[in-house]
C-alpha cells in the first residue's frame, strides 16, 4: 500500500528542549498582609476572572497568594481535550478561552493551583502574565508579588559558553560559574589571561588539551597586568576590537601581583581585569590570603587556644582600585548574574582606562560548606552586607544593591564551617567590622556620588 505521508512528510526536524521561561511572577510565600486582595481585584478588573488566588486564611494565620508557575512540561496542556492550552516560545502557558469547553481536565491535572474552572462562566482560566505587564504586580503595594524579568539577563548572556564541559574544577565551583557567566556576556572577541590558580584549568586547559575556544595566555602570578598591557596596546595599534580580559584569583590580585595591577590602573591601560575572590589560595589547599574574612578558619589561620581564625580584616582591593581613579571599578557576586553582566558591559565600554571587577565567588571546599551552597552563600553575603555591591567610575561611587534591612549575620555564617567556631561575641565583632565596611562604601557614595559618562568631572 502507499502510505500517505502526514503533514511533515518524512522530514524530521530537530527539536530542542522546550523554550525557557524568561520573565515570571514571583510571590513571596505567605508574606501578604491579612485581608489584602489588591492583586486579585486588579486581575479580575483587567481580565474578567481573577487568575490569582488569594490564600487569605485567617483561621490558620496564613495570608498569601498563588498563581500559575508556567510549567516547562505543563500537565494541564497534556490533559486539555481541545488543544486550548499551548506553551509559547516565551515560556508562557496560554489558555485560549475560545477553545475551552470547561471540562475541568486541566484543573484535575494541575497540582499547583495554577488553573481554575469557573462554574459560572463554564470556562477555565489561568495566568498568562498579561503580556509582560501583569496587572497584579502593578497593583501590589507590598512588594510581595513582583514581576521578575530574566529576559534581560538572557539577552545580556547571549553568547555561547566558550568553555568545554568536563573541566577538572570541583563540582559546584562558583569561580567556574562566574567565569562561564563572564564570557557569555563578553563574547568571543577577547583574549583570556590566567595565572596559577583554580581558574587556569578552565582558561588554559590541561596538559595539551584546550578547554576554551578563546585565545588564552597563561601568565605568572606576578605579572598578569604587565603582560596584558603589551597585548592590549598591540591589539589597539592593529585596530582590532579584541579586548584583553584577565580572570584571576585573589592571591594573584591582592597579594602576589598587586603592584603591576596598581601600575596598570595608574597608567590607564585599556584592560579588563576580573578578580574572582574565593578568599584564599584554594588551589593549594585553602591557605589564607589578604582578602580572607577576619575570623575565618583556613589552613594557615587555624582555630585553637592561641588563635581563632584569621586576625586581620580583609584588604578591600576594589576600594583601593577605585582610589586609583580607574576608568571603571565594580564589585559583583555569582549570586547576582544580571548585575554582574551589566557591570561587565560597563567595564567593556570603559575603553579609556582600566576596568576592574571584584567578583565574590565562594569556595565551598575551602569554606567547608556543601557542594551546592556556593551561590546561596554569595547571596547571603550580599543580603547581610558582608559583601556590598557597588560600582565606581573615576572614583565616583554608587551602590547597585543597597541593603536597607540586612539579614542577621548568622544567616551567612551558619552556611559554612570556616566560621562555625565563632561564638556570639565573635559574631558581634565580625558584625561590627562588616557594618564598618558597608558604611565606608555608603560614605564614599555620599561624598563622591556617581556621575554618568560624559558628565563633567571626569579626568
Amino acid at each position: 500500500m502507499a502510505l500517505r505521508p502526514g503533514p511533515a512528510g518524512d522530514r524530521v526536524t530537530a527539536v530542542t528542549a522546550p523554550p525557557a521561561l524568561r520573565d515570571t511572577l514571583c510571590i513571596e510565600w505567605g508574606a501578604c498582609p491579612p485581608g489584602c486582595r489588591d492583586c486579585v481585584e486588579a486581575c479580575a478588573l483587567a481580565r474578567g476572572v481573577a487568575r490569582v488566588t488569594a490564600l487569605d486564611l485567617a483561621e490558620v494565620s496564613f495570608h498569601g497568594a498563588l498563581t500559575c508557575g508556567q510549567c516547562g512540561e505543563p500537565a494541564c496542556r497534556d490533559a486539555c481535550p481541545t488543544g486550548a492550552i499551548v506553551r509559547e516560545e516565551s515560556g508562557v502557558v496560554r489558555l485560549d478561552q475560545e477553545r475551552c469547553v470547561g471540562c475541568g481536565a486541566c484543573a484535575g491535572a494541575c497540582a499547583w493551583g495554577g488553573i481554575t474552572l469557573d462554574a459560572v462562566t463554564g470556562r477555565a482560566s489561568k495566568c498568562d502574565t498579561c503580556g509582560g505587564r501583569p496587572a497584579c504586580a502593578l497593583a501590589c503595594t507590598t512588594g510581595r508579588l513582583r514581576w521578575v524579568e530574566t529576559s534581560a539577563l538572557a539577552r545580556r548572556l547571549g553568547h555561547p559558553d566558550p568553555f568545554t564541559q568536563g573541566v577538572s574544577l570541583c563540582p559546584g565551583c562558583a569561580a567556574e560559574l562566574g567565569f562561564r557567566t563572564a564570557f557569555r556576556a563578553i563574547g568571543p572577541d577577547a583574549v583570556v589571561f590566567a595565572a596559577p590558580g583554580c581558574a587556569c584549568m578552565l582558561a588554559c586547559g590541561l596538559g595539551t588539551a584546550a578547554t576554551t575556544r578563546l585565545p588564552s595566555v597563561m601568565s605568572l602570578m606576578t605579572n598578569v597586568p604587565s603582560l596584558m598591557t603589551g597585548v592590549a596596546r598591540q591589539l589597539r595599534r592593529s585596530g582590532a576590537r579584541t579586548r584583553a580580559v584577565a580572570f584571576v584569583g585573589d592571591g594573584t590580585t591582592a597579594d602576589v601581583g598587586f603592584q603591576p595591577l596598581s601600575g596598570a590602573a595608574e597608567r590607564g591601560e585599556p584592560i579588563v581585569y576580573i578578580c574572582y575572590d574565593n578568599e584564599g589560595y584554594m588551589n593549594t589547599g585553602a591557605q589564607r590570603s589578604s582578602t580572607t574574612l577576619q575570623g575565618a578558619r583556613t589552613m594557615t589561620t587555624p582555630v585553637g587556644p592561641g588563635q581563632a581564625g584569621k586576625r586581620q580584616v580583609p584588604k578591600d582591593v576594589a576600594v583601593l582600585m577605585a582610589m586609583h581613579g580607574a576608568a571603571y571599578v565594580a564589585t559583583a557576586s555569582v549570586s547576582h548574574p544580571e548585575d554582574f553582566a551589566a557591570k561587565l558591559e560597563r567595564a567593556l565600554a570603559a575603553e579609556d582606562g582600566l576596568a576592574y571587577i571584584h567578583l565574590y565567588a565562594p569556595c565551598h571546599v575551602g569554606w567547608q560548606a556543601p557542594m551546592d551552597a556556593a551561590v546561596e552563600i554569595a547571596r547571603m553575603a550580599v543580603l547581610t552586607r558582608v559583601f556590598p555591591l557597588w560600582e565606581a567610575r573615576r572614583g565616583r561611587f554608587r551602590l547597585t544593591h543597597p541593603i536597607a534591612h540586612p539579614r542577621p549575620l548568622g544567616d551567612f555564617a551558619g552556611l559554612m564551617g570556616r566560621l562555625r567556631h565563632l561564638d556570639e561575641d565573635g559574631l558581634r565583632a565580625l558584625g561590627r567590622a562588616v557594618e564598618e565596611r558597608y558604611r565606608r562604601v555608603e560614605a564614599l557614595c555620599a561624598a563622591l556620588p556617581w556621575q554618568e559618562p560624559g558628565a563633567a568631572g571626569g579626568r
Partner: protein
Amino acid sequence: MAATLRHVIIGAGTAALAAVEAIRVGRPADPITLLSAEPEAPYSPTVLPHLLAGRIDESRIALRPAAFFGTRGCRLLAGTPAVALCADRRVLRLAGGGELEFDRLLVASGSEPIVPALDNPDAVPVHTFTRLADLRVLRAALGGTSRVAVLGAGLIGMELAEAIVHRWPGARITVVEQERQVLPRAFCREDARAVEDLFESQGVGFRLGCRAVALGRRDGAALLTLSDGGCVEADLVVACVGVKPRLGFLAGAGLAVRRGIVVDRRMATSAAGIHAAGDVAEGPGADGTIGCHAVLPTAAGQGRVAGANMAGRAVEHEGWLPANVFSFFGRLLVSAGATEAVGRQTRLGQASGAGRGRLVLDGDRLVGASFAGMPADPGALCWLIRERVPVRAQAELLLSRPLEAARWLCARAQRGTA
C-alpha cells in the same frame, strides 16, 4: 541506547500526544510515526457533548495545530488503523496491507463503546456516542421535540442529556441506569440525588435501578422494554453504558491482556520495547489497585511516562486516582479518591447554602473528597490524597473553603514548610 530509535504510536489522542512531547524532551531526532484510525485531525471524544450542545465549533477541537506534527518531526498517518502486531519481529501490519517496523511501540488506541446486550437488537438502530461520526448522525437525527432514550447515566450519558437539553430544550429525554443513582462510582449518593433533581427540573426523566432488556418498534419509533417491566418510547436510542479498551488488533500478538493491556508503573507491557498508555492500559492505581482508568489527566500522565521510558529515561507513573469534574447548568461537582468511607475511615460533611462538601479520612489522611456547588480544585485534592498529606487538623477549613485550603495545604507540603 541505539543512535536512532524508530518510534511508532498507535493512536493520536491525549496519551499519544503526551508521549510525543516526552520523547522529544530527550530524543530530538528519532523518527516518530503516529497512526490514527480516524480520518480527522486528532481530537478527543471528550469534546463530543460540547460540540452537540453548540458550545464549541468543530474548527476548534484539534488537539494540536496542523503545524505541530511538522515542528515535532512526526509523521501522522490519519485514517490508517493498525490491524495486527507481531511483537517478536517488531512489525505492525496496517489496514491495506502495509507494514511498519519499529524499535519502540506505544499502544494508545483508546477505547470503544460497550454495546448493551438487548433482545431483538436489530429492531431499531442503537447509537453510540464516542466518535465524530456518531456526533454527525445524532445531530442530523435530533430535532426540537425528539424523544431520546439514553442508556447509562455515567459521565458520557449525563453530558449527552445535558447537551440535548441545552440545544433542544423541547426534547424529551429519559435516562435509564441500572444503578440506583446517576454518576455511580464517580459521586456519592447525596451528590447524585442533587444532580437528578436539577436534571428533572429541566425536564429530564430518570429510570434508575433498571436496565433496558429488549428492543422493539412501535409506529416507527423505538420501544424499549426495561428490566422492571416498564417501557420507554423513543425516536432515538443512544447507548452510553461505558467504554472498553480498543484492542481487537492485538489478537495473537502475545501481549498480556486482561481487561486492558497489562502494564507496570513504567507503562511497559509484557513485550520488550512495547508500552501502552491511556484508556487501553490496565495499570496500577495510586492505592495499588490494578485497572483501566479512562480519564484525561490519567491518559496524559501515562502517555508522558510511556514516552519518557521509550526515550530511555526510567520514569514511573504515580498511579491513577479516581477524579471527576462534572459541570452542568452552571453548577460544579468535583470528586477525588474514595466517595464512601470503608472500614475504619471516617466521613465528614458540611453544607452551607447551595454548597456541600464531604471528606473521607483515614486517620489523619485524606482518601476522598467531593464538593458540590462550591469552588474546588480537583488537582490539589488529588495531590493531597496521593502524597498522603495529613489534613485532619484542617478538615473544617477544607470543608468551608475547599479551593483555598486545598491549595494552601498543597503548596505548604510542596515547599516543605508543613
